[in-house]
């Protein structure tokens, strides 16, 4: 019996080539889209789930009130690690990490590589296996280093790395005591090497015991059987008991939640990335559903053709069940073919998709579990798309179909119409969302940054740059490479430091107000084209007392409540209490998120610490010429290090990467959804034109025009698109309204967006349907009526 079904399925597929290709194309594109999204979702869900001890690993978090709001953050003081191990019997192991950025020298090879300073427990807590070396001892002494396979390849090529010596920053020699298997594509950690924490202490000349400086990540492994609630009740007071800081609570954030649940609002965990995961899972489901709907629609539209077969089979003894099995078998077979096509599509598009999503996803062909999922996915698709047609077709009464009186019902709420409306509702929601995401992106990109980004370049101060700053600065200008140079504590696009350790006259007692800290040298506002709105720049040469001068931004003036900010005194607790005098106010500029209001900022002068040189390239030369000149100057005064530089506008545009990604993905999936929906619409229009061919013939004989017939045939479909639009509009508005709430600076949703979406959808559907409608209308009525 099975063979008979297979045979008739196969012949049916071959006989109706256009039907078959529309069906398979739609299903394959739908399955491929869903599969891509599911690969992405699977990768996100698996983040750091491979650590054997994941259920016992936690990251330390702080919680405290700022300006009336309960804020949580995951950086901690450095001494917390030792305190956890010494004073908390629940903690089995603990390790800190912070970023390391060193020049690696090996013979002629010089590479700047980034890694972590960390404690020896790191290797035994987390499951990053070593190919060479022992996890228990690899980081035990200060001049030991563990490198990843990739780093080993970079430095040593194919020769053995283990036991070799590497020069770090021209001052120290490290021995490779471990080669680590490359990090998988689903971990939060990102490093090229690990070096012992003791080296950080050596470089900085001290063990940092300050509980007020939150600058490292601290991880703890709990002993088996210790619950999160219990340990949280114990560690809550760790900062209070070890320092005189009294307003910070500490808690532990479990590893299993790091990736997807790490958004805190008012001290409570409120979700995080999981929202996007859910959203995209829903989109994947809908795209697959839309593809299945196509199948259902086309199959039932063809029911008149299949009806005779159903009738005959019933007459010669087929039961309803055997017919359901037959039709389900057909749809599973189509799903199987589509699945194979989809797999090819996924394989072909995965590299571009990876580029788009910044991932390294791959198809795990060698994994039996993957094939199991694949087969279930195909069966699921086959059954989902085949269920309705199977029930529909198998229920035909043979008496009617064999007498030729059979006509599929054309009621106002036929399931087929509901299915088309579902498809188009989803497509329209996606179109509207895409437009609004793009608008929001444009809106934020066009926001005034407050300074000029063009031709602005920065270089990190490595090696001997700091020592030779005055010479470098001078030569950059005299050589004609730059028109203005300044040094700062951080790049213009990144907030590296903030503090609530400032007081001033009139500050409300007990108020905790956080300020961004930024340090600048002479020519800061000139180099950045920043506008001073009051007072003057810091200038130690002209005003010797400016060593304690500060600048405020407008947001700081506002929050501090100064009517006349110039001359005000601001204090902090540095060196047992320092006083600063406000000499100027600068216009707000965007340091961090372009979607948020500018945070209050206090800018200190040349006595503070510096990390970055910013310079404005000379517009009279080409960029290449300027960079060549700059490179020579940096090489001259910092010969050990390669020249690195960053364009501020490139770095700034990275702030939009997330939204651009969402925008591109939304566009992509909106496009695919429309494509699949239109395939379905095209197929339906084809069958409708065939089924009504006699009616069209009669109408033409009676005098209907081609235009009249075309309109008549297209009208029905446009009505459905209209209904879809009515359903989609409030839905899209609500979704995008919720999305925009995440941004302080956001566009208003305008009516025009909906008008454009309506126009686009109508246009696309008219083009899709009218092709068949015109063809039907042009048919000579003699032909269509002859067979009567």
């Amino acid at each position, binding site marked *: 019996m099975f063979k*008979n079904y297979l045979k008739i399925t196969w012949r049916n597929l071959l006989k109706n080539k256009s039907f078959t290709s529309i069906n398979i194309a739609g299903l394959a594109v739908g399955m491929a889209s869903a599969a891509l999204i599911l690969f992405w979702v699977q990768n996100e869900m698996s983040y750091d789930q491979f650590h054997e001890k994941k259920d016992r690993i936690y990251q330390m978090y702080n919680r405290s009130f700022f300006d009336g709001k309960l804020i949580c953050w995951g950086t901690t003081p450095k001494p917390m690690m030792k305190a956890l191990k010494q004073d908390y019997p629940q903690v089995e192991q603990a390790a800190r990490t912070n970023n390391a950025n060193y020049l690696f020298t090996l013979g002629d090879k010089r590479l700047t590589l980034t890694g972590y300073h960390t404690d020896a427990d790191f290797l035994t807590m987390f499951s990053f296996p070593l190919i060479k070396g022992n996890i228990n001892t690899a980081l035990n002494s200060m001049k030991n280093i563990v490198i990843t396979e990739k780093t080993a390849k970079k430095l040593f090529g194919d020769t053995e790395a283990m036991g070799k010596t590497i020069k770090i920053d021209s001052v120290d020699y490290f021995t490779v005591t471990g080669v680590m298997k490359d990090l998988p594509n689903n971990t939060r950690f990102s490093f090229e090497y690990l070096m012992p924490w003791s080296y950080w202490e050596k470089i900085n000349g001290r063990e940092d015991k300050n509980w007020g400086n939150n600058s490292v990540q601290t991880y703890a492994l709990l002993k088996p059987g210790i619950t999160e609630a219990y340990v949280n009740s114990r560690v809550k007071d760790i900062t209070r008991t070890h320092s005189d800081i009294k307003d910070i609570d500490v808690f532990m954030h479990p590893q299993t939640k790091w990736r997807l649940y790490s958004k805190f609002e008012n001290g409570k965990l409120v979700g995080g990335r999981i929202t996007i995961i859910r959203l995209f899972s829903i989109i994947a489901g809908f795209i697959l559903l839309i593809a299945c709907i196509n199948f259902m629609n086309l199959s039932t539209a063809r029911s008149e053709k299949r009806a*005779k*077969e159903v009738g005959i089979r019933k*007459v*010669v*003894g087929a039961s309803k069940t*055997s017919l359901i099995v037959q039709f389900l078998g057909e749809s599973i077979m189509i799903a199987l073919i589509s699945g194979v096509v989809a797999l090819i599509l996924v394989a072909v598009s995965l590299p571009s998709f990876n580029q788009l999503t910044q991932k390294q996803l791959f198809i795990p062909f060698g994994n039996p579990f993957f094939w199991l999922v694949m087969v279930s996915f195909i069966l699921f698709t086959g059954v989902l798309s085949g269920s309705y047609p199977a029930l529909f077709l198998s229920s035909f009464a*043979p*008496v009617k179909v*064999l007498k030729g009186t059979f006509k599929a019902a054309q009621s106002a709420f036929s399931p087929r119409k509901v299915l088309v409306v579902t498809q188009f509702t989803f497509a329209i929601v996606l179109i509207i969302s895409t437009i609004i995401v793009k608008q929001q992106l444009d809106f934020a990109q066009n926001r005034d940054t407050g300074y000029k980004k063009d031709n602005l370049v920065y270089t990190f101060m490595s090696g001997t740059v700091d020592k030779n700053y005055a010479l470098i600065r001078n030569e950059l200008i005299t050589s004609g490479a730059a028109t203005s140079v300044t040094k700062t504590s951080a790049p213009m696009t990144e907030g590296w430091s903030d503090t609530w350790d400032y007081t001033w006259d009139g500050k409300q007692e007990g108020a905790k107000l956080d300020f961004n800290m930024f340090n600048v040298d002479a020519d800061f506002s000139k180099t950045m084209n920043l506008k001073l709105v009051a007072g003057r720049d810091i200038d130690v040469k002209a005003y010797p007392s400016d060593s304690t001068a500060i600048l405020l931004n407008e947001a700081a003036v506002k929050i501090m409540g100064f009517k006349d900010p110039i001359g005000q005194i601001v204090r902090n607790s540095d060196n047992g209490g320092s006083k600063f005098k406000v000499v100027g106010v600068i216009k707000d500029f965007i340091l961090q998120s372009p979607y948020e209001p500018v945070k209050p900022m206090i800018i200190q002068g040349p006595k503070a610490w510096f990390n970055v040189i910013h310079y404005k390239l000379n517009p009279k030369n080409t960029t290449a010429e300027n960079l060549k000149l700059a490179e020579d100057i940096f090489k001259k005064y910092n010969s050990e290090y390669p020249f690195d530089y960053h364009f501020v506008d490139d770095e700034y545009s990275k702030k939009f990467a997330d939204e651009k990604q969402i925008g591109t993905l939304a566009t992509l999936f909106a496009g695919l959804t429309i494509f699949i929906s239109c395939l379905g619409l095209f197929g339906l229009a084809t069958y409708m034109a065939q089924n009504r061919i006699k009616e069209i013939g009669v109408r033409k004989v009676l005098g209907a025009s081609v235009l009249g017939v075309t309109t008549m045939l297209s009208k029905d479909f446009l009505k459905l698109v209209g209904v879809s639009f009515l359903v989609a509009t409030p839905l899209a508005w609500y979704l995008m309204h919720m999305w925009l709430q995440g941004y302080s600076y956001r566009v208003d949703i305008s009516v025009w967006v909906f008008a454009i979406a309506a126009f686009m959808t109508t246009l696309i559907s008219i083009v899709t349907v009218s092709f068949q409608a015109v063809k039907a209308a042009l048919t000579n009525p003699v032909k269509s009526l002859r067979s009567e």
Partner: protein
Amino acid sequence: MIKITNLEKFYRTEEVETIALNKLSMHVDTGEFVAIMGPSGCGKSTLLNILGMLDDPDEGSYVFNGIEVAQFNERKRADLRKHNIGFVFQSFNLIDELTVFENVELPLIYTGVSAAERVKRVEEVLDKMQIMHRRNHYPQQLSGGQQQRVAIARAVVNKPKLILADEPTGNLDSSNGNDVMELLTDLNEQGTTIIMVTHSEHDARYSHRIIRLLDGQTVMENIMV
């Protein structure tokens, strides 16, 4: 073999109720060849569908081989039908996507006959109908007469006790039509009961008895001599 008593069947649309069968009673004995005649709309086809258990009556009794089937559900009717009744239609009703052989094989598949036995029986019946040489052709490649012979082959392959024929010669020329009638007569002589709906007095003469219907009632019975 068949005994129906006071059989009624109505067709309802929103506004009109049409009576197709009006308290119809009749019987057919095993081995008989009965022709049913009457003008269009007299209820012939409705009667044939009910006799073939493709449709159920609204009122009355239908006893088939001693079993009351009027109240049977679809599954029971289908089961009884596939073992006892073969159908022949005016428009042949072959499945276009299946070959001659596969079309004839179909009833055997649904009654669960083994593959080897199926080949044997299909070949046997194709041979008898003299269309063996066409076994791998599709219905569209055959003439009307040949298609009807395939349809008859399909109707008899399961060795049914009863064959219901609905204007079996309606789409055929007279020569092919006579061939089909000869085939049915042969089957009848070998013991199969046949009930045939027809418009043709010529065809009706092949039968033993003619039942004439008008407005859903028997108006006359002719016994052929």
